[in-house]
C-alpha cells in the first residue's frame, strides 16, 4: 500500500488537459484528409484506392461534370488517397477533431468540368485530366516534331477512337483489334 502511494506521488498527474489544451500528435500522424480543388484533375485514383468507399466519383454527362465526393463519416484515415494521388490534391493532415452535429457537415463535394469529344460532341473526360496528360506528354518530349497527332487524338473520346481505329484496320482487311488493347 505504501509502495503504491509512493508510486502515485512520484508519477504525479497523468491526466492531460485536453480539450482545454491542445494535444500534440506525432509528425506522421494520419488525420483528416484535406482536399485541394486547384490541384485535382478528377482522375479518380483516390476513389479506386479508397478501401471504405469514403471517396467516390460521379459522372453527370448531361451537365458535363465529374464530381468528387468524400464522406468523412466513412473515412478510416488510411491515407491511400494521399499515396496514389498524382498531383498532391489530397493530403492527410494532423486534424482529428471531426465531430459534427449534422451529417451533411461530414460531406465535401467538388465538381470538375468535362471536355467534349471533337468527333461526336459528347462529354467524355475531365478537362484537367486531359491537360495533365498533355503536360506529361510535353515533358516527355512527345509533343514536338511529328508528334502533334497526340494532341488531336486526346480530344477524341475512347469510343470514337475505337471506331476510327476499327475502320482504319478494317480498310486493311484484317479483323479489328487494337494492338495491346484489352478484349
Amino acid at each position, binding site marked *: 500500500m505504501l*509502495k*503504491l502511494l509512493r508510486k502515485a506521488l512520484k508519477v504525479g498527474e*497523468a491526466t492531460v488537459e485536453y480539450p482545454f489544451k491542445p494535444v500534440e500528435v506525432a509528425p*506522421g500522424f494520419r488525420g483528416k484528409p484535406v482536399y485541394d480543388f486547384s490541384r485535382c484533375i478528377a482522375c479518380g485514383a483516390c476513389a479506386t484506392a479508397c*478501401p471504405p468507399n469514403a471517396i467516390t466519383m460521379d459522372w453527370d454527362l448531361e451537365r458535363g461534370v465529374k464530381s468528387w465526393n468524400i464522406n468523412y463519416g466513412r473515412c478510416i*484515415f488510411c*491515407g*491511400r488517397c494521399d499515396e496514389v494521388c498524382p498531383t498532391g490534391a489530397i493530403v*492527410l493532415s494532423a486534424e482529428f477533431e471531426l465531430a459534427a452535429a449534422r451529417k451533411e457537415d461530414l460531406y465535401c463535394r467538388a465538381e470538375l468540368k468535362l471536355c467534349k469529344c471533337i468527333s461526336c460532341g459528347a462529354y467524355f473526360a475531365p478537362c484537367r485530366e486531359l491537360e495533365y496528360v498533355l503536360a506529361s506528354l510535353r515533358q516527355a518530349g512527345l509533343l514536338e516534331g511529328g508528334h502533334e497527332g497526340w494532341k488531336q487524338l486526346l480530344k477524341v473520346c475512347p469510343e470514337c477512337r475505337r471506331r476510327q481505329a476499327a475502320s482504319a484496320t478494317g480498310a486493311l482487311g484484317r479483323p479489328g483489334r487494337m494492338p495491346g488493347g484489352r478484349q
Partner: protein
Amino acid sequence: MPNEMKPGQDGKKSVEALRSKFGAAILAEAWQTPDQVTLTVELSSLPEIVEEAYYRQGGWLSSVVGNDERGLNGHFAVYYVLSIEKERVPDKNFWLTVKALVPSHKPEFPSVTPRVPAAVWYEREVRDMFGLEPVGLPDARRLVLPDDWPDNLYPLRKDAMDYRFRPDPVAEEENYKFIEVEGEGIVEVPLGPLHITSDEPGHFRLYVDGEYIVDADYRLFYVHRGIEKLAENRLDYDQVTFLAERICGICGYTHSVAYASAVETANGIEVPPRAQYIRTILLEVERMHSHLLNLGLAAHLVGFDAGFMHFFRVREKAMQMAEILTGGRKTYGMNLIGGVRRDILKEERDQVLRLIAEIRVELDELLDLLLNTTNFISRTQGVGRLDPGVARDFSPVGPNMRGSGYARDTRADHPYGAYDRVPWDVISRDGCDVLSRELVRAAELYESLKIIERCLAEMPPGPVLVEGFAYKPYSFALGYTEAPRGENVHWVMTGNNQQVYRWRARASTYNNWPSLRYMFRGNTVSDAPLIVASIDPCYSCTERVTVVDVRKKKARTIEYKELERYCQERKNSPLKS
C-alpha cells in the same frame, strides 16, 4: 491452381506415414510451400485422417475452411487446417491441410467432432454459412447465424445473395436452445432483449448450485459483420489489408499481417526483409498495448483499481509508439500486399528506444505492486482451471494455452516475419489458472520489448515494398500470426478479377471459447468475470449473464455491471434474494 513446391523433409515423412495407413483414401498431395501441404482425401475417410493427424502426429486444429468451389470443380470443399507440432522443434513443424470435396447434389460430410472435439464450432459454422451438413455432429444448433435468419439461405455460397442483402427476419424472438443441465431439472428462462451498450455483446448462461458453477453455455456472434463476404465481393487485394485490421479493435494489425502473408505466400511474392522486420516490430507494439490492457483489467476485476489506472498510464506509452511509427494509435494501416507503406527513420527509432527504456522501469515497479497485492494472488490462483487434457482436445491458443503448460506459440512454432532472426523466449507456466495466464502475459511484455529493440537495431536496409508482381488465379495458402490472444490463421484463395475468391479469417479467441465451459466448472459465480477476462476475449462479451440455479429450478438474469461489482467486492451476492 496452387504452386507445386518441394516438400520439407519432416512434412514429407508425416505424409508418408498417413499414406501408409490410409493408402488409397489420399487422392492428391499438393505443397503450397515447403511447410504447407494440402492432402485431398476421400470424404468418407475425412474424420479418421484428421483424427490420426491430430492425436498421433502431434496436430492441433487451427482452422476449418468451407468453400464453394462449384464454379471451379463442381463441388463444395472443406479444408481442415492442422498445425503439426510433433516434436516441438520448429524446424520439424508444418501445416497439414486435409481437404475433402463435398458433392453439390448431396451437401453433407461426416462430422469430425466425435473424434476431434476441437472441430465443433468450425463444423457448426460451415453448416451455417455453406449449408453443408456435418453428419453425426452432436450439436445441432446454429453458431453464427441469428435465430431470425431464414432456413436454406447460406450466406457464403456464391449464388446465395448479394453481400448487401438483408433478408426479412423470420422469427420474432430468440429461440436458441441453451444446453440443459441434468440432475434437478431446469426451468425455461425468459430472455430479455440484448443491450449492445458498452463493450461487445454475448449471452452467457451459468448453471449454478448455490454459489458454484456447475456448467455454462454461451452464445456469441451477435455482431457478425460478414467481413469475408464483403471482401469477396467489393474489395481488391490491397484494400482487404485494411478491412482485416478491423476484425479486432485491440489486435487488428496481426490480422492484417496474417491476411497479407496468406496472399503473398499463395502468389509467391517475396516480402523484403526490412518490411518483415517492420511488421514484427509493429506486431510486438500491438502485443504490448494489448497485454497491458488485459493486466489492467485483471487488476480492475479483483478490485485493485489503482493498479488498473497505472497499467493504463503505462499502456499509453505503447500507444505513442504506434503513433510515432505508423501515424495511428490503434489502426496502423501499414500493410499492402508485398510489404509495408512506411519506413522507420532514425529519429522515430530513437524515440521508440527511449519509450522502451521507460516502459521497462515502469513495468518492474507495477508488476511488483500487482503481484504483492495479496488479493490478486488469492483471487487468481487455482481459479478458472484449463485442464491440460481439455486443452489437448480443444486446441486453445495464446497465453490461455501457455498458462496450462503447453509452450505453443506461432512465432516460434511456425516462424514468420523476423521472429527467427532475433533471440527471444517462449513463455509458459503450468498453473493452468487465471494467475498463470496473467503471469505469461506479464513475462511476454519483456520479450516484446526485447524483440522490438533487437529488430530496431538489426533491421537490414533496403526497400520496404515490392511491386510489379502478378496474382495467380485460384492459388491458395495459409497466413498466420501469434496475436496477443493466440494464433490467428487466415486462408486465402485468389480469384480471377483482382479479388479474393475465398478468405477465411480465424481469430485466436475463436479457438478459446469452446473450452471456456470447462474452465467455469467448479468455480464461484463471483469468479466468472475474472475467468472470462483471463482468456482476454477482447474482453467484454459478457454483457448479460443468466444464472440458473439447478437446485431451486430458478433462473435469473443479472446485469453485467452487477456481476462485475460482485466480482470486485464479493459481498451482497446478487443470487440471494
